[in-house]
């Protein structure tokens, strides 16, 4: 006997009230998209999504499901008719699939009260059979294998193996945000954190050629491909930032350059977010990490957003934990490639860690930045990834294609 389905458990979804149906529908859709290459049937109800294996090896299917947000746990399940001898045999064969497990415990949920034995009686009957026919012992406190039997009118579900999913919410339910992507270590991790929580991200990058290398764009494409695992369609918009950056360095005293540059970036990001109907702007900032990421700096920078929400998913994360996460999602090795982005190219010798708003406003009066911002917005190019591959983007780039 082989396990015949995977059971997907919802996490925080179960706390949802009237919205729950919509969340489940979204998750079912995402699961079906993720499992398309496997060609497996699936079905969803109030409490679980069932993926029918049809003889397929569950391991790669589970690995893929672990990349889908909104899944708390994935159990390997066998479904049998609610007859004691079938339940006993199935339990033993499931246990035998768990290499190395010697001790077990049985938890019974008797939803169908018509079953002749009560929960304790079922547990004892199945355990007796396992002890008699296999080399196992019972351990109620720290079992190596926890067998779950759920008796429902349509059959008995047996599982003894489950794996943790990503958690969070299904992607697409919470709207989308505009994520600033630099190519460094932090921003891809921030993007992943948002996606995990069910928030669709659209990325924005500020390119300052020739101060930044064209190789940064290749690096960003690799990052998009990595994030694409978690969000099936992802796009990056690249804004030409050179002229604005040059104007900042020509007009603003050096210690304020980074602050003003970040204010311009947020202005651009908010404008792009509104244009793309995103509900917030997100950054990979972490409090205290660099001069522009002190609370004072953040306040002065955020002022330009004019109460448009700015999300900082990593704001209290330590660098080491960010690095650890970036390794886990596979972006670390891409991020550390040695190309400059526009934040590292001109490091002021003494950046202001506690900038003053009045001074910022004063310096910004010195040049017509609005015109330069408009120019940036007009020069946007778009890169789209779907299913791990770069695809032709909708919108901007089409104009350049031959008719």
């Amino acid at each position, binding site marked *: 006997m082989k396990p015949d389905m995977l059971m997907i458990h919802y996490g925080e979804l179960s706390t949802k009230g009237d919205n729950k149906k919509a969340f489940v529908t979204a998750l079912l859709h995402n699961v079906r998209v993720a499992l398309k290459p496997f060609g497996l049937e699936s079905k969803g109800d109030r409490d679980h999504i069932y993926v029918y294996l049809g003889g397929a090896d569950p391991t790669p299917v589970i690995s893929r499901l672990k990349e889908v947000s909104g899944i708390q746990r994935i159990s390997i399940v066998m479904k049998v008719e609610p007859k004691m001898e079938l339940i006993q045999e199935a339990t033993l064969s499931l246990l035998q699939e768990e290499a190395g497990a010697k001790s077990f415990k049985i938890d019974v949920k008797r939803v169908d009260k018509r079953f002749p034995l009560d929960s304790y009686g079922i547990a004892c009957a199945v355990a007796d059979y396992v002890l008699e026919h296999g080399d196992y012992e019972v351990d109620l406190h720290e079992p190596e294998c926890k067998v779950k039997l759920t008796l429902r009118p349509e059959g008995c579900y047996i599982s003894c193996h489950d794996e943790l999913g990503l958690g969070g919410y299904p992607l697409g339910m919470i709207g989308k945000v505009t994520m600033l992507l630099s190519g460094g270590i932090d921003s891809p991790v921030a993007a992943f954190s948002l996606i995990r929580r069910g928030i669709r991200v659209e990325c924005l990058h500020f390119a300052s050629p*020739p101060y930044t290398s064209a*190789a940064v764009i290749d690096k960003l494409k690799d990052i998009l491909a990595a994030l694409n695992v978690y969000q099936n369609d992802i796009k990056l918009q690249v804004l030409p930032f050179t002229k604005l950056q040059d104007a900042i360095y020509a007009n603003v005293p050096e210690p304020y350059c980074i602050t003003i540059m970040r204010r311009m970036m947020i202005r651009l990001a908010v404008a792009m977010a509104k244009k793309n109907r995103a509900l917030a702007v997100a950054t990979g900032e972490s409090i205290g990490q660099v001069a522009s990421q002190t609370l004072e700096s953040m306040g002065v920078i955020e002022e330009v957003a004019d109460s448009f929400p700015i999300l900082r998913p990593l704001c209290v994360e330590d660098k080491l934990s960010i690095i650890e996460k970036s390794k886990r999602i596979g972006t670390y090795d891409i991020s550390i490639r040695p190309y400059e982005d526009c934040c590292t190219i001109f490091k002021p010798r003494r950046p202001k860690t506690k900038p003053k708003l009045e001074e910022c406003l004063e310096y910004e009066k010195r040049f017509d930045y609005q015109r330069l911002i408009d120019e940036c917005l007009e020069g946007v190019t778009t890169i789209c990834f779907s299913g791990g591959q770069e695809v032709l983007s909708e919108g901007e780039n089409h104009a350049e294609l031959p008719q």
Partner: protein
Amino acid sequence: MIYFDSAASTCPKKEVLDVFLSASQDEYANPSSSHAFGRSGGRLLESARKQTLDLFGVSATHQAIFLSGATEANNLALKGIAFSYQNRGKKILVSAVEHPSVLEPARYLAKAFGFEVVELPVDSYGRVSPETLQAHMDKDVILVSIMGVNNETGTINDLKALSQITHRYPKCFFHSDLTQAIGKVEIDFSCLDLFSFSGHKIHGLKGVGALIYKKNIRFVPVLHGGGQEFGYRSSTVALPLALSLSKALELSLASAKNNLAHVKSLRETLLQGLENEEIRVNSPLDEAGSPYVLSLSLLRHKASVIMEGLSEEGIYVSTSSACSASLEKPSYVLLSMGVDEDSAKNAIRVSFSEDNTLGEVRLFLSSFHRLLKEIHAR
């Protein structure tokens, strides 16, 4: 496109590709096989070997091994000699500005096998002076390795004088990495005990090079296996690549003189055009420098930014050398020449081939002037 990065690699000549292609199609048997098809390849290989040695004028005294390129040739020269002759002495001298494929094997021999390695200081041109070499020579030195032309600056070493000093010590061999020198400067090959070069720097193909060595030299091989190439370089010999290498060498040496005059005029025009810019010329401009390579330090700008700006316009140059590009490290070659750290971090290398034109130099100059004006200083 304007390609001014020929010290990194060159465009293969059509004749070279033709030789490679027809040998790949027609002579695919293993040249070590003893059947007629294999023997025919074996004969071709020996003819390529002989032609190579003839072109250098050293067939009477030297032998040639085909291998994957100058890096492998340098590794075999250093490790092969060191291991083979370590009972004569355990001291090796290399210049401080050698390519990493000489420096790193030397450092490895020092670190892992207890050899005493001296990295000889260079003068402000980047040359090892005969006096410096003489001062470090003693009876324990078994190998001196000094490059013919430096890959970052084009500096030429006086190989004749240096080898003469070495040869006063009968137990010591003189090796030279000629990767940037072949076909570009005049060399008396007969004074060298060993020398290395690579195909793709002389309009040949990537993946092939040769080590030429005096017939009395015995190596401990780096690659062990089937015993090809006199047992010194096991691996099925890439016959089409070996043939392509001797073809590239033939073409390169035949046109060396004419090319030199042409490239000199390119460098002249370039330098005239740069007279009023805030740059420092690192390369020697007299007979101590090959006109093929010009190293310039930008005094006010970041070299990587200017390189990127040129690249956007389809003009390709390097920052110091291709191997160390994109790392924010000062060039060790320039530092060794006494160049200050800022200049050593912001060097651009313009390297020519005979295919470049004066028109290209003028286009380069106009882009270069504009970028230096437009781009924010560092």
